């Protein structure tokens, strides 16, 4: 049975799920949801995801939402689960909010006719540099965040890292850090992630 993934392929959280399904070799079909016309806030979408957010999945009659819950469900080969979980939490609580705010301010708000708060972007960037310093130290001890193998902890970073380093124009935060840079080059070259990029094109 093909898993249905509801959401636009260009959005970060659906991409987190698509990357995982591609890594795991799980067949899926994307059902596009148009965020600009607020399709995700309409009464016919809310039964799928009561918070009005993407993605949500449908696997037969099994439904799930929250991208990190979805990837945990499909990635069954979780070795050293605790350390993977730890770095997934780091991504969710220390990394994601900062990048999300920067991307929202720099890319999304102007598209909606609102003004970018450059002061806010700058303060997020400063905080993000400190977070990436911790990653730099971590990645000097292991090839991937949770150890020597690629796990969900690395995968979960892919969508936001891509937005940060390309469209938001903050590649220098990564390229200035040797280990973070090698890690990013490595994980973004994975065939499954390239397929997600292809879907987005």
């Amino acid at each position, binding site marked *: 049975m093909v898993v249905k993934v509801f959401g636009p392929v260009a959005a970060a959280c659906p991409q987190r799920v698509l990357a995982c399904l591609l890594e795991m070799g799980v067949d899926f079909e994307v059902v596009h949801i148009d965020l600009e016309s607020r399709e995700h806030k309409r009464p016919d979408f809310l039964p799928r995801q009561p*918070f009005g957010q993407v993605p949500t999945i449908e696997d037969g009659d099994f439904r799930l939402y929250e991208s990190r819950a979805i990837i945990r469900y499909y990635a069954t080969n979780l070795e050293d689960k605790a350390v993977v979980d730890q770095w997934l939490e780091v991504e969710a609580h220390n990394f994601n909010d900062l990048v999300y705010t920067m991307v929202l301010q720099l890319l999304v708000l102007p598209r909606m006719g609102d003004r970018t708060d450059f002061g806010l972007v700058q303060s997020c960037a400063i905080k993000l540099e400190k977070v990436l310093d911790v990653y730099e130290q971590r990645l000097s001890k292991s090839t991937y965040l949770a150890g020597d193998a690629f796990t969900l902890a690395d995968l979960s970073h892919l969508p936001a890292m891509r937005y940060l380093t390309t469209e938001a124009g903050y590649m220098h935060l990564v390229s200035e850090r040797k280990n973070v840079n090698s890690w990013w080059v490595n994980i973004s070259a994975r065939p499954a992630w390239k397929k997600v990029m292809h879907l987005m094109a």
Partner: protein
Amino acid sequence: MTIKVHGSPVSTASMRVFACLHEKGVPFEFVPVNLAVGEHKSEAFLSLNPFGQVPALQDGDLTLFESRAITNYIAHVYADSGNQLICKDPKKMAICSVWMEVEAHQFDPASSKLTWELCLKPLFGMTTDDAVVAEFEAKLGKVLDIYEARLSKSKYLGGDSFTLADLHHLPNMKYLMPSKAAQLFNSRPHVSAWAADILARPAWLKASGQ
């Protein structure tokens, strides 16, 4: 004693871990970290959590940080001790996981902000910002509307039994219940009943020093 928890009794994230350990009946040694003097930013503590945040846990050779990774670790590794906090069936566990994410991404940001404004700032001699309180009460209210719908169909957030999905809410709820924000919970019957139920759990009373 194999487990050490480095944290602070006033820290919501630390309380989350204490709650889990008490539910499982797993003995542990509490190592206090003095936040007031910045001990969480000391080199010694940074070697446990490079982000300089409490709590951190040591179990033999394993060191972990991030409270929700720690609770998940304890609930899985000590699955056969004490109260069951997770589900063996993968689909049931996935639903539980959904609500753990909801707590982290929807409930926690709004409730933490209110805890800070209403409960913690006064303790530090700072002034509550009423505009911020109004903004976040509105946000939390919208989240709790969804909880009300969920809890009218399910006894606990993850399903029929109490799990980590419910437990993770306890620390912020403990701070907010004595404050004016309590009306957000009390005005929603299913949320109110659920909150009263989980806040009365013996393990929580022990964990929160009550």
